[in-house]
């Protein structure tokens, strides 16, 4: 069978199964295995010989799956996920939000700003946008509603703030991107710092503008009678998050730790902090661990299946053929980039972030390489686009997460409209990142040369 036709059929099969609600891991893995069997059993111009295909297929499947799971560098994924869960149970993230609330209360929309900044801080610990939105949504949305914030601003701020987890290190999406593009995780983590902070500034500016345009959406009173507003005490609540962030980003930037070591050390430090504060008990430790290993298993199943899918796609040589076809038009780089941005924005509305990464990278990365694009910069752009996808309907995952953890008074349309307002400056940040690659590359270049 013609490999190009086979690749096309397999890709179509994956999309069909995804539409039928088959888990991403199963759809990718099964289609890749069937595709590999057909590829080896039915060579172009020859007869079907199933027996002959078994040996190469099993060798390929065995090598790609076992070596992927049996990996030291990838142990950073469960360790970072564990860090997020332990930090949540140790109330490190709750303290961060409480402190920021006191410190920012005098600014316009101070509580909303504290929520977004809290999300940034939470992201810096957990690395997961959805976990961040879920955890912060439970605390911050009811709090803002209690103070009289409009549901649209309250829910939109946390949905948007939650997306910062994709860019601010340690980001799980960066780790997955690094696996599939063979880029340095250190470089990607550092490359995400400035764009992440820039996105944070964009969100804070959005809140300022919101307060100016619709003052009725923001309450006049920002402190309740009897509330503790001691700034020094509030500052002291920031140290655990600051310490964990320093271990991860500072440790990697200064070359003290590899990302895996930073993940392990920060997980142990967070656990010790939780035990010291009597927040982490045996049962909360088990609960954190249980959530961690379940999430790890889910993510790794998708990544493992995607590894098989990538192996199949590279065998069929569909990517070089697509590249040749593309180059026959000789499109300028900016046109290709615009097409890729639109592609990710559209696909981001329908698929979840990990699925998009593993499905698209085998196609988009070779295109970028043919234009000598720095893959660290491209990684930042892709992750930023996925971040935007998290709050873009109909499948903006953070929108649904916020809806599910918010009080019933917050409707889905309020969350969508609220998040939509934050998209405007998010696009401005995206354009800046596209036009000025140094915003992403300056920090990794300064660290590693």
């Amino acid at each position, binding site marked *: 069978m013609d490999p190009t036709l086979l690749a096309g059929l397999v890709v179509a099969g994956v999309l069909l*199964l*995804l*539409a*039928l*609600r*088959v*888990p*991403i*891991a*199963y*759809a990718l*893995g*099964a289609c890749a*295995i*069937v595709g590999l069997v057909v590829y080896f059993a039915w060579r172009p111009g020859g007869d079907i010989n199933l027996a002959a295909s078994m040996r190469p*297929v*099993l*060798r390929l*499947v*065995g090598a790609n*799956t*076992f070596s992927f*799971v*049996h990996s*030291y560098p*990838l*142990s950073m994924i*469960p*360790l970072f996920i*564990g860090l997020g869960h332990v930090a949540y149970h140790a109330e490190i993230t709750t303290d961060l939000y409480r402190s920021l609330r006191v410190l920012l209360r005098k600014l316009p929309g101070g509580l909303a700003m504290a929520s977004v900044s809290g999300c940034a801080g939470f992201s810096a610990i957990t690395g997961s946008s959805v976990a961040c939105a879920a955890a912060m949504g439970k605390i911050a949305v009811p709090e803002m509603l209690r103070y009289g914030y409009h549901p649209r601003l309250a829910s939109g701020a946390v949905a948007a703030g939650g997306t910062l987890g994709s860019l601010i290190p340690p980001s799980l999406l960066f780790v997955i991107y690094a696996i599939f593009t063979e880029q340095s995780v250190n470089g990607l983590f550092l490359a995400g710092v400035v764009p992440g902070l820039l996105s944070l500034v964009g969100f804070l500016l959005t809140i300022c503008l919101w307060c100016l345009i619709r003052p009725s959406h923001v309450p006049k009173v920002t402190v309740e009678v009897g509330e503790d507003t001691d700034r020094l005490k509030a500052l002291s609540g920031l140290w655990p998050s600051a310490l964990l962030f320093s271990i991860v980003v500072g440790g990697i930037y200064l070359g003290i730790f590899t990302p*895996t*070591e930073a*993940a*392990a*050390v920060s*997980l*142990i430090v967070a*656990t010790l902090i939780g035990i010291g504060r009597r927040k982490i008990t045996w049962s909360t430790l*088990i609960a954190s*661990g*249980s959530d*961690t*290993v*379940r999430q*790890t*298993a*889910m*993510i*790794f*199943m998708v990544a493992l*299946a995607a590894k098989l899918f990538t192996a199949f796609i590279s065998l069929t040589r569909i990517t070089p053929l697509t590249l040749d076809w593309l180059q026959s038009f000789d499109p300028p780089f900016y046109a290709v980039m615009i097409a890729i941005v639109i592609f990710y924005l559209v696909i981001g509305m*329908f*698929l*979840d972030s*990990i*699925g998009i990464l593993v499905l698209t990278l085998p196609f988009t990365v070779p295109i970028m390489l043919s234009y000598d694009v720095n893959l660290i910069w491209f990684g930042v752009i892709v992750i930023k686009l996925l971040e935007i996808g998290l709050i873009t309907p109909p*499948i903006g*995952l953070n929108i*649904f997460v916020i*809806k599910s953890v918010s009080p019933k008074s917050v409707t889905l349309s309020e969350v969508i409209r609220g998040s939509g307002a934050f998209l405007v400056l998010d696009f401005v940040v995206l354009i800046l990142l596209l036009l000025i690659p140094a915003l992403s590359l300056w920090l990794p270049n300064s660290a590693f040369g």
Partner: protein
Amino acid sequence: MTSREPYELPSVPSTKAERALATVAIVCLFVMAAMITLNVVSRWIGRAIIPDDILIVQELMVLVILFPLGVVTAARGHISVDLLTEWVRQKGRYRLAVLEHCIGLIMMGGITYAAWRGFVQAWDTQDYYSGTLDIPMWIGHASFLFGSLVFLMRLFAMLISDIRASR
């Protein structure tokens, strides 16, 4: 991704063995973190005190990833896209779940058979990772095969129960 409360399929209770395996994975996670931290700290003081820590972490990773899969599958926890099937009612959802398990079985059937071959080869050759501990390769392959088998059995059990429910 999801907003499927109205026709959400209930999770299936996981077995004691699956929960025990998930607990093993939790223990391995914290052991991994403690071991790496201990070696980082001891490296600052003098030299790393745990030999072959990278190899041990690799072996533990297999358990951390594969062992909770039974519990995750019983809870219908795998990541899926629920855009075009949101309107599907309970019975239809069970039929889709049957398809899901069949596809899962194709994937895991291939992976488990490859894992068996990998284990047999590692056992026959008795190869080991060279280091202080000379860890035999078959250990990692055996845990990979065991984890895959448990996952495969869980998929099969889910298939049977969802076929019954879809009638």
